[in-house]
C-alpha cells in the first residue's frame, strides 16, 4: 500500500464553525503532562480479501511494519479488516477467538514493532456467539475489545442475521505504542455505531480524546456532487462529533469491491475543532500517516468549553424520568 503523509494545515473545504452543544460529554480528562506533545498515527485504508484471514493477516503485518517504520504509535485498520465484510454464511468459518494464533500474531507485532493496532474481525465468544468486533492491541496485549452495538439490518445490510450485538461503549487508555508522553483516552465506534449520537456522547462523557471509527461503508445513494450520498453523511458525522465533543475522530474506511458493492474509502483525521486535517482523497488502498497534537485538544476546549458546560445532571434526570415513564408503560 502507498504511504500517504498528510500535508500540514487544514483541508480547506472541511473547516466549520462551532454549533450548540448537544451531547453529554466530559468528566474525566486527567491533567496532561505535556500539552505540547504529539503522536503519529496511521489509518490503513485496506482492501481485505473476502473470507481469507491468512492473506489478510499477512497484509496487516506488512502494513504494521510500514506504519512502525513511519514512526506511528497506532495503526488503525477498517471494520472486519481480517475477514472482509459481506461474509454471510462464512461468519462462523472465519471467526477467531481472542486466544487464536491470528490475534497472537498481531499481539506479537504490536510488541515487536512498538505500534498499537486496531484490527477488525469476527470474534467468537465462549457461548459461540459471533461479534463484529475491533481489538485495540498494544505491547503484546489486547487492551480493549469493542463489539459493534448497532448492527445495520436494512437496505443492503443483513448483520443481525449473522452476528450478535455488543452492549457497551467504553473508553480506555490508549498507550499509542508507548510513544505518547501523556495519557490519551480513546473509544471505538464501528461504522453504524457512528449513526447513533448517543454512542459518541457516551464516549465523550468518559473523557475521550480520540474516537476511533473502523468502517466498511459501501458507497451508494446520490450520484451527484463528486461524492456518493454515504460519503456526504460520514463527512457530516465525523466533523460534527469532533466539533461537538472536541475530540479527534479517526475514520478508517475500507477500499475495494464485494459482489459489485464498492467501498468508498475517504479515511480521514478530523481535529477537535471539526476540521479535516488529513484525508485519503479516493477509494484506493492507502496508509494515511498524521500527527495528533495534544495542544489541538486543549485549544479546542479553551475556545469551546462544551464538555465543561455539559449538563450531565439534566441529562441523567431526564433519562431517569423517561425510563420510569417507560417502566410504567
Amino acid at each position: 500500500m502507498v504511504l500517504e503523509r498528510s500535508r500540514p494545515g487544514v483541508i480547506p473545504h472541511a473547516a466549520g464553525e462551532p454549533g450548540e452543544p448537544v451531547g453529554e460529554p466530559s468528566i474525566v480528562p486527567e491533567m496532561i503532562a505535556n500539552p505540547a506533545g504529539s503522536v503519529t498515527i496511521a489509518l490503513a485504508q485496506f482492501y481485505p480479501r473476502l473470507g481469507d484471514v491468512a492473506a489478510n493477516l499477512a497484509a496487516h503485518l506488512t502494513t504494521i511494519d510500514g506504519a512502525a517504520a513511519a514512526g506511528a504509535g497506532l495503526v488503525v485498520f477498517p471494520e472486519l479488516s481480517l475477514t472482509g465484510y459481506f461474509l454471510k454464511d462464512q461468519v462462523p468459518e472465519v471467526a477467531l477467538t481472542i486466544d487464536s494464533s491470528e490475534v497472537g500474531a498481531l499481539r506479537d507485532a504490536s510488541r515487536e514493532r512498538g505500534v498499537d493496532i486496531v484490527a477488525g474481525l469476527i470474534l467468537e465468544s465462549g457461548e459461540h456467539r459471533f461479534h463484529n468486533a475491533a481489538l485495540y492491541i498494544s505491547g503484546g496485549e489486547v487492551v480493549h475489545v469493542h463489539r459493534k452495538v448497532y448492527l445495520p439490518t436494512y437496505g443492503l445490510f443483513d448483520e443481525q442475521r449473522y452476528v450478535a450485538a455488543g452492549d457497551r461503549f467504553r473508553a480506555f487508555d490508549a498507550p499509542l505504542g508507548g510513544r505518547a508522553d501523556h495519557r490519551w483516552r480513546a473509544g471505538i465506534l464501528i461504522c453504524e455505531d457512528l449513526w447513533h449520537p448517543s454512542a459518541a456522547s457516551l464516549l465523550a462523557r468518559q473523557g475521550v480524546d480520540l474516537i476511533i471509527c473502523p468502517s466498511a461503508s459501501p458507497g451508494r445513494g446520490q450520484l451527484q456532487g463528486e461524492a456518493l450520498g454515504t460519503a456526504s453523511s460520514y463527512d457530516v458525522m465525523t466533523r460534527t462529533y469532533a466539533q461537538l465533543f472536541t475530540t479527534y475522530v479517526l475514520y478508517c474506511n475500507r477500499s475495494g469491491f464485494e459482489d459489485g458493492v464498492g467501498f468508498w474509502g475517504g479515511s480521514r483525521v478530523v481535529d477537535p475543532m471539526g476540521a479535516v486535517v488529513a484525508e485519503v482523497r479516493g477509494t484506493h488502498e492507502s496508509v494515511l500517516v498524521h500527527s495528533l497534537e495534544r495542544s489541538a485538544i486543549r485549544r479546542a476546549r479553551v475556545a469551546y468549553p462544551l464538555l465543561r458546560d455539559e449538563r450531565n445532571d439534566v441529562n441523567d434526570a431526564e433519562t431517569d424520568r423517561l425510563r420510569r415513564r417507560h417502566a410504567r408503560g
Partner: protein
Amino acid sequence: MSTTPRPIDSDADTLAVDAPFVIELLRGFIADGVRKVGFERVIVGLSGGVDSSLVTALAVSSLGADSVVALFMPYRSSDPQSLIDALAVCESVGIKAEIVDITPQVDTYFDRFPDADRTRRGNKMARERMSILYDHSMAERALVLGTSNKTELLLGYGTLFGDMASALNPIGDLYKTQVYALARALGLPQSVLTKAPSADLWVGQSDEDELGMRYAVVDQVLHLLIDERRSKAEVMALGFDAAEVDAIVARVRGSQYKRRPPVIAKLSNRTIDREFRYPRDWGR
C-alpha cells in the same frame, strides 16, 4: 403520455449524475470484477446502441483496448446504420469489432417453425447472440459484460437468458437517461447519442413505441417508485399520468421473475440461496 410538468422538485434533477465520478467508480468495478475471478479480458455484444456502446467504452477505459473484444452480431433485418455506429464506437475507443452474422442459424431454425411471431423471433435472436457471446467468452478467455440498464431491467424489456445474461453488468443500476449522460461524457459518436433507442430486431423498431412511454418520463416515475419508495398515489399526485404510472407498476411486478434466479422446490434444511448464503465473491 404525460405532458404535465412536475409541480414540485422542478429545480432538482434527481437523475443527474456526476459523470466523471461515476465513470471512475465503474472503471474500478470492471477491473476488480474481472481480475478477481482470474480474467484479464472482457467481451461485449456491441449493437451500436447507447447501452452496449457505453459498456464498451467503459471497458476500454478500465482495462485498455487490448483487453476488450466487441462482437457485432447482426441479423439480416438489422438496420444498416447499426453497423456504421458500432464501427464508429470501436474506432473512437481504438478497438476492432468482430462480426458474426446470426442470419443463417436463426433462419435455419425458423424454417422449421415458419409461423413464429416477431416476439419469438426477437427472443431467439437475443438468445443466439448470448450463446455466441459465451462461446467466444471461452475461446477468448474474456468475461461477458452485461448491457442491460436499470430501466429495461425494471420494465422487463429484455430477453431472459438472452441479452439479460452476463457475468458483470456495469450499467444495471443506471437509468436510460443516466446512460446517455455517461455516454455523452465519454464522447461517444453523435449518432449513437441521438438515434431513437431500439432493440434493432427490425428496421424502424423503437423502444419507446413498443413500451408506449418515453424514457424521460419512465425514468422519473421509476426513480420515484423504486429509489424514493413513493407510493403510486404519491407519484400520481406529482402530476404524472395515472394510466402510465399504473402501466409501469404492472410491468415492474409482472417481470419480477426475470430478475430472480429460477425457483427451487424447498426440501432440505439448507436450500441454495435460501439458507445456503454465500457471496458471489466467496474466496475471491
